[in-house]
C-alpha cells in the first residue's frame, strides 16, 4: 500500500445562523498522500486547513466527499483508523493537572499500548523531545514550546504510521521551532507519513516533499516545491537584487521585480543615483512568490502570516 491518504471531493459546509448563506469551509478538495511522504497544507488564516484535518481524524463529519486512510474508509472504519493515526491539534491540549510523564502514559493507555511498554516509551519520548528534566513537572507549568513538544510526543506514543500536525511550530522561538522541524524530518526517515499544516513558507519548503496550497477551501496548487517554483518562473516574474555603495559608509540593497531580466536590471540601475553598483543577483522565485501569485494575497497578508499567529481562532 503506497497511498496512505486518498481524498475525493471532500467538502465541509457550516450552516450560518440567521438564514444567511452557509459557509463552505472546505470546498470539494481532492488529493492523495503517499506512504512515507511529508505532505504540507499551506494557506492563509481561515483557508480550511484545520477543518480538513478535523474531518480526516473523525472530529468533524464531512458534508460530502470521500476519504480513505491507510486503506480504510473514513465513513465506515473510523474506529480502526483512529488506532493508527496520531494527531497534534492547533493548540497544545494535554492535561494541565498531570505531569509530563503521566500525560504520555495516559495517551498510551487510551490507545492500548501494553503496560510493559509504556514506561520505557515515555522515557524515550521525553529524551527525544529534550524534556527528561521536566518528567515530573505538571503540564500547566511547562513553557509554550515544551507544551508543544510534549503534545507532539503524546501523538507519537502509540507509534502511528500516519501523523497529522496542525501548525506544529506556530508561536515557538527560532530554536524550538528548529528542534521540532528536526524531529519531523526524523519521522520521515523512520517511514512515518506526515500531514502538516503551516503558515511558514520556509518551513513547508524545508520539510515537505509536496505542498498543497489551499485558499478559501480550495486547493489552488499541488506539487513538489521545486515544481511549484519552476512553474512560477515560467509563468512570469523575475526578481533582481542589486546593491549600491556611495563609496564610503552607505550600502543599500534593492529588490526589483519585472517581467524579464533585462527590464529588471534597467529598472534597478535607474535607481543608482550616481552610486556605484557593488553586486547584482537574479533571484530564483521563492515559495513566497509562488504563494503570493497563487493566492492573490499581497504583502500585508504575508506580514500577518510571518508575524506569527494572526486571526483569533484558538482551535474550536
Amino acid at each position: 500500500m503506497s497511498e496512505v491518504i486518498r481524498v475525493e471531493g471532500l467538502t465541509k459546509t457550516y450552516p450560518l445562523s440567521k438564514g444567511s448563506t452557509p459557509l463552505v469551509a472546505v470546498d470539494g478538495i481532492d488529493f492523495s498522500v503517499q506512504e512515507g511522504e511529508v505532505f504540507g497544507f499551506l494557506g492563509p488564516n481561515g483557508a480550511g486547513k484545520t477543518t480538513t484535518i478535523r474531518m480526516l481524524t473523525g472530529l468533524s463529519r464531512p458534508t460530502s466527499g470521500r476519504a480513505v486512510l491507510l486503506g480504510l474508509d473514513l465513513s465506515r472504519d473510523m474506529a480502526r483508523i483512529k488506532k493508527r493515526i496520531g494527531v497534534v491539534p492547533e493548540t497544545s491540549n494535554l492535561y494541565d493537572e498531570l505531569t509530563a510523564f503521566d500525560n504520555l502514559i495516559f495517551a498510551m493507555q487510551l490507545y492500548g499500548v501494553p503496560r510493559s511498554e509504556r514506561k520505557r516509551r515515555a522515557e524515550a519520548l521525553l529524551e527525544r523531545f529534550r524534556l527528561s528534566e521536566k518528567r515530573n513537572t505538571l503540564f500547566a507549568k511547562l513553557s509554550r514550546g515544551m507544551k508543544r513538544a510534549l503534545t507532539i510526543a503524546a501523538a507519537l506514543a502509540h507509534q502511528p504510521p500516519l501523523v497529522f500536525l496542525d501548525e506544529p511550530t506556530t508561536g515557538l522561538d527560532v530554536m524550538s521551532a528548529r528542534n521540532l522541524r528536526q524531529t519531523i524530518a526524523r519521522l520521515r526517515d523512520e517511514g512515518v507519513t506526515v500531514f502538516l499544516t503551516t503558515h511558514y513558507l520556509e518551513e513547508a519548503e524545508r520539510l515537505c516533499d509536496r505542498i498543497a496550497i489551499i485558499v478559501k477551501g480550495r486547493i489552488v496548487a499541488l506539487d513538489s516545491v521545486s515544481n511549484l517554483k519552476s512553474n512560477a518562473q515560467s509563468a512570469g516574474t523575475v526578481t533582481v537584487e542589486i546593491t549600491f555603495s556611495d563609496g564610503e559608509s552607505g550600502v543599500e540593497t534593492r529588490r526589483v521585480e519585472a517581467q524579464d531580466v533585462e527590464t529588471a536590471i534597467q529598472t534597478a540601475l535607474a535607481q543608482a543615483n550616481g552610486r556605484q553598483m557593488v553586486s547584482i543577483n537574479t533571484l530564483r522565485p521563492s515559495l513566497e512568490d509562488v504563494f503570493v501569485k497563487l493566492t492573490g494575497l499581497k504583502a500585508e497578508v504575508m506580514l500577518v502570516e510571518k508575524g506569527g499567529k494572526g486571526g483569533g481562532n484558538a482551535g474550536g
Partner: protein
Amino acid sequence: MLVDDLRGMFYIALKDLRAYYFKPPNISWGILFPFAFILAFAIRNPGDLRSLVPGLLALTVLFGTSSMEAIVIVFERRIGSLERLLLAPIRLPALLAGKLLGGMTFGLTVTLAVLLIALSIFGGTETNWLMMALALLLSATAFSSLGAFVSVAVREVFEAQTLANFIRFPMMFLGGVFVSVDSLPAWLQVIARLLPLTYSVEALRAALTGGRWETVWLDLGFLAIFSLCLYSLAEYTLARRLD
C-alpha cells in the same frame, strides 16, 4: 472494539479521579456540604437525628457524584482536551461511561466514609447491606448521569454550576431529606415523585431500617430508569454538540 471501549472507560475514569476528583478542595466539599446542611436542619429542628441519616447519605451521593461531574466535561471541552478522548479509539458511549464511572467512584467513596461515621454513632444492626449497596450504586449512577447531562447541556463552566444547583436544590427540599414526602401537599408530592432523590432517600431509609424488598424494588427500578434516561440524553446531547 469492546475491549478498546472498556479499557478506555477505565483509564478515563482513573485519569479524572487523579486529575480532578481526589483533590483536597473537592474531597472536603464533598463531605462538608451535606453535613453542613443536615447540621443546620438538626439545630433548628431538634428531634430524632437518626431519621436524618438516609437523607444525609442521599445528599452525599448526590453532591459527591454530581458536583465535579457536572463541570468535568464542559471544562475539558472549553480547554480543548476533550478532543484527545474523541480522537482515541473509544466510542462515544464508552467515553461518557468513563466520565460517569469517575464521578460514581468518587461519590461512593465519600458516601462510604459518611456511612461509616453515621453507623459508628447510631449503630447499624438493622441494616440490610445488599439493599444498601444497590441503593447507593443506583443512586450514584442516577446522579452521575444527571451531572453528565448538565455538563454537556451547557457551554461554560459557571453555567454548569448554576444549572446543577437549579436542579439539586429543589430536589433537596422536596426529596424527603428533611421532611417526609408524605407530609407535603399533594401537588408537591407529585413533583417529588418526579425527582430521583426521592427514590434514593426512600431506598436508603429502607436499607437502614430493615425495610421490605417489595417496596424497595420500585425505588431501585425508578433510579435505574432515571439513570438510563439521563445517560441517553447526555449522550445524545454530546453527540450533537460535536461537529
